[in-house]
């Protein structure tokens, strides 16, 4: 079809070009017009050349942290023992900010286009068909997903996304079971799970999480609930418990439920 030049490069395309295969004519034509794919390709090539030159990683010895702790702990104290703050750990940022950054980092990580394009998508969803201020301010359903179980633990659930009157998106996730260990994390991702945005953790059978404004739901159509360990690794553990693609209900506009 005439639309072939519109097709974004897949992860397979990027990997095969990065491993030295010549891109097909279609890919070349697309790259000429698509800045996003050019950037993805440039980054993939940077990854490939960095991979080809291994470098030794070094774990900092324990003394380094002790030094940091000592230097920072000394402030406002005489000497020696640092003053414990809250639960005894030194908090890096005020709590509200600290909870925000993994979401934003993951969003940035997923190559999320925040800005004109993404905002336009959301604005398009929110724009009432007629009359701007006529509709009373209430959340508008944007999409829903049935989360089918992926593992033999049979965790399943559903998710609903709404747009609040202030323009913010919220995703409510209901799950049938809560974690026996570790915690559950909620993600928006593409079908291949190569691009992910972390929305936050599941805090009960029903959890409502903010969705970063500007997210392009065409690029991140799947809601994914993962099993995570308390290992401090912010990446998806690779264990998806339940997932499902979102069906858009954004065009209904007037019909509640």
């Amino acid at each position, binding site marked *: 079809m005439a639309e072939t030049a519109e097709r974004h490069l897949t992860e397979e395309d990027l990997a095969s070009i990065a*491993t030295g295969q010549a891109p097909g004519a279609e890919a070349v034509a697309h790259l000429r017009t698509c800045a996003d794919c050019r950037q993805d390709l440039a*980054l993939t090539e*940077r990854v490939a050349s960095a991979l080809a030159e291994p470098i030794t990683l*070094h774990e900092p010895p324990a003394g380094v942290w002790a030094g940091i702790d000592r230097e920072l702990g000394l402030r406002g104290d005489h000497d020696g023992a640092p003053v414990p703050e809250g639960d005894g750990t030194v908090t890096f*940022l005020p709590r509200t900010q600290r909870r*925000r950054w993994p979401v934003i980092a993951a969003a*940035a990580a997923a190559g999320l286009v925040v800005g004109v394009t993404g905002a336009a998508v959301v604005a398009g969803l929110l724009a009432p068909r007629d009359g701007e201020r006529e509709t009373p301010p209430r959340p508008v359903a944007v999409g829903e997903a049935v989360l089918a179980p992926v593992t033999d633990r049979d965790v399943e659930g559903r998710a609903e996304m709404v747009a609040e009157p202030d323009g913010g998106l919220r995703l409510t996730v209901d799950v049938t079971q809560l974690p026996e260990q570790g915690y559950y994390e909620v993600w928006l991702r593409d079908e291949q*799970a190569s691009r992910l945005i972390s929305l936050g953790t599941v805090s009960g059978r029903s959890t409502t999480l903010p969705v970063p404004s500007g997210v392009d739901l065409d690029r991140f159509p799947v809601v994914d609930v993962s099993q995570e360990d308390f290992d*401090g690794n*912010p990446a998806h553990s690779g264990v998806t418990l339940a997932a499902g693609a979102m069906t858009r209900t954004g065009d209904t506009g007037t019909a509640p439920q």
Partner: protein
Amino acid sequence: MREAYDQHGRLVFSLCMAALSNRQDAEDATQQVFTRAWRSREAYDPTRPLGGWLTGITRRVIADTFAARDRQRQLVDATAGQRQREDGQLSEQVIDRVVVHDALERLGPPQDEILKMAFVQDLTQGQIAERLGMPLGTVKSHVHRGLARLRTALEVNDG
């Protein structure tokens, strides 16, 4: 702060080791990076990735360390000729290598091993499939997923 250190300590220390090639200096520099980060935490924009911000501070600390070495060298003139010339900063390539290999270690098996075979040992995906007794399709999917995750790591570090 401890979380930031647990998450990014290895990256920062590895960058310092790569640039300074001296363990003691690298330890001092790493300590400085985190104490500076803490003291200038008001300037941290929480909408930006923390790793990228810390890398920026690491660059400045390393530049300062080189400047201090220069001053030291002028004082101890006699040894000046013996030390190799240093370019005084952390190169983009070194940052990419440390960031990518740090993220590679976090991928875990078998993806990390497969990427090493593909990019370090330069094996074809067919050869990797044969050695690991894995279907070619599985190897391919590990390669492209792994690359995507490493790309994400670079992107986050770029900020």
